[in-house]
């Protein structure tokens, strides 16, 4: 695999084939990431398709997607590898039982050494996402919500992302033959370190405009009628523009809402059915109450 994409337009086409509509900017950044072997750092409002990009990339290139969900307190044993202690003990006990049953005791030093090296064998190694990705490369590695992890974890990632290799003291060094395509996402709850940002190609994803969002709904949910899709998207865009919501709905919510409306069998969006399915788009009581009260106005405006 030399170059997976020949140009930015090829990225748009390939992603379009999976139902992910990338604009010119995102396509260029993705193209560069695959060519320069650099991670993509995506920031933006929740629900703008940061995670979906990794999924679409994996699907478009027919590669495996390996996901590492970050959380507060995550450390190397959850990201890289760990030894399977219970299984190692079980193995020891089995060996012990076998030697006891057999009539020859095999406690020569050579055997002890062999037994020890047996314990730190591939089969007792639990590969966590990063190691898994290095071994499985080419693949897509999604490091989701990196801002939730601690600073030290970022430093650790930096090391892996620049050398594409991991050293396991008992086994040796694992390095990726071709670097995986890495997508990092962040919701900006804290600033990431400059060192990490420098390694990455940075892109900020905004909420899409009306036409683009409509296109997204039409591609992702072909079963939803054109008229209904347009109504939903127009309403969602209005909700976002109003600026008074605690959590404005993202594209993911638009899709959920359209799907919900389709499921209840609505053919057009009126105040009654909108109020009944509002929970698909708005996730705060205060938001729902405010919008419910002004639904009529929003729908007719």
């Amino acid at each position, binding site marked *: 695999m030399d170059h997976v994409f020949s140009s930015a337009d090829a990225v748009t086409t390939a992603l379009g084939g999976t139902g992910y509509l990338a604009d010119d900017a995102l396509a260029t950044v993705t193209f560069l990431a695959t060519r320069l072997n650099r991670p993509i750092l995506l920031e933006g409002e929740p629900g703008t398709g940061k995670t979906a990009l990794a999924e679409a990339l994996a699907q478009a290139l027919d590669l495996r997607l390996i996901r590492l969900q970050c959380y507060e307190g995550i450390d190397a044993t959850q990201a890289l590898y760990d030894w399977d202690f219970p299984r190692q*003990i079980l193995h020891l*006990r089995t060996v012990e039982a076998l030697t006891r049953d057999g009539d020859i005791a095999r406690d020569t030093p050579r055997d002890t050494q062999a037994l020890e090296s047996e314990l730190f064998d591939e089969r007792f190694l639990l590969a966590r996402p990063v190691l898994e990705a290095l071994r499985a490369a080419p693949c897509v590695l999604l490091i989701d919500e990196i801002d939730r992890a601690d600073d030290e974890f970022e430093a650790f990632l930096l090391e892996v992302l620049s050398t594409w290799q991991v050293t396991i003291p008992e086994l040796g060094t694992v390095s990726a033959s071709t670097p995986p395509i890495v997508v990092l996402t962040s919701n900006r709850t804290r600033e990431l370190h*400059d060192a990490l940002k*420098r390694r990455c190609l940075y892109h*900020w994803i905004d909420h899409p405009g009306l036409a683009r969002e409509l296109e997204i709904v039409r591609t992702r949910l072909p079963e939803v009628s054109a008229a209904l899709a347009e109504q939903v998207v127009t309403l969602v865009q209005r909700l976002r523009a109003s600026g008074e919501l605690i*959590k404005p709905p993202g594209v993911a919510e638009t899709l959920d809402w359209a799907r919900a409306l389709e499921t209840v069998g609505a053919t057009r969006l009126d105040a009654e059915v909108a109020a009944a399915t509002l929970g698909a788009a708005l996730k705060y009581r205060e938001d729902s109450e405010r919008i419910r009260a002004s639904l009529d106005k929003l729908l007719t405006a």
Partner: protein
Amino acid sequence: MTAAPEQQAEPEPDELLLGFARALRAAGLGVTADRERTFLVAAATVGLGERAHVYWAGRATMTSVPADFPVYDEVFERWFGGEAIPRGRRVEVVRPPVRQAPLDGGDGHGGEADADTLEARASAQEVLRHRDVATLSAADRVAAARLFASLAPRSPLRRARRHVRSTNGSVDGPATLREQLRRMGEPGRIHHRRRGVRPRRIVLLVDVSGSMSPYADSLLRLAHVFVRSVPHVEVFTMGTRLTHVTRALSERDPDRALAAAGRVVPDWSGGTRLGEAIGAFLDRWGRRGMARGAVVVVFSDGWEREGPEVLGEQMRRLAALSHRVVWANPHRGKVGYEPVQQGIVAALPHIDDFVAGHSLAAFEELIEVVSRA
């Protein structure tokens, strides 16, 4: 420095691109040499045929926060629009580079200076510690500023997800097994473990409106001490708008840090829309994770221009998200103070600790409250 492209001679592409990167650096973006290199490689990869491609290649490689975008756009337009940036002109520098060591009062030199101060000086400091910072003379203010270096905030702690070894507590299965493994399966000592601790995040919301202006300088100095000495601190100023000043305050020297913050904050001594400012903090930062489980300190006198309902509602949200809400009110330390301002009345039910915040001694007390939270 590269020469600005002359009209008569068409510049080489790499010269043109490198010049662009340098222009961005001159405009205040953090374009380092490795970023320059990445940009050149990226531009070569997308090709120079299309203006938009070069634009996105540059933006992906040389910016790192959305705040960089306007500067980037302006420089891009000027550079590739044919108009070069005149040397020495700066667009808007968000954070000036520091190459200077602190002159005095900075951390690191405090101990030395303290050692040979006279006793009389020490007792003067003691008096100063209890004086209201709003009423200090210019000379006292300088002395007080030096005293800020002696404040030593500590992080409040929370239980961590990870365990640490301990002599008591629950049995540590893996460690006990590992011990057994070392003894080739013979039972060994039983290991114990307990949950470790980690520092909690601290969020400081500083009211810089007109009614708080005598305290703004001291409060930001206090915030600077926090930012410099404990991890996970975020600072915002509130006035007619909300400004994130953590970056500006991360300068080492207090005076430079304050000056940097002064450049970032657009609304010194304006009106207050406390409720809305707290709401904006929650919407843009707090709810996404910054306030979750954090100790939030609000420095304000509670004067609210808008009705108190908004403030009450936003304080409720803040209390629901954070671990502990501390309100520091400079007037609290004054004799005869009653919390009667509408704002503070609306906020009180959602506050865990209500403390003073008018003198250095009060700041020490506040630090104690925060570290115990």
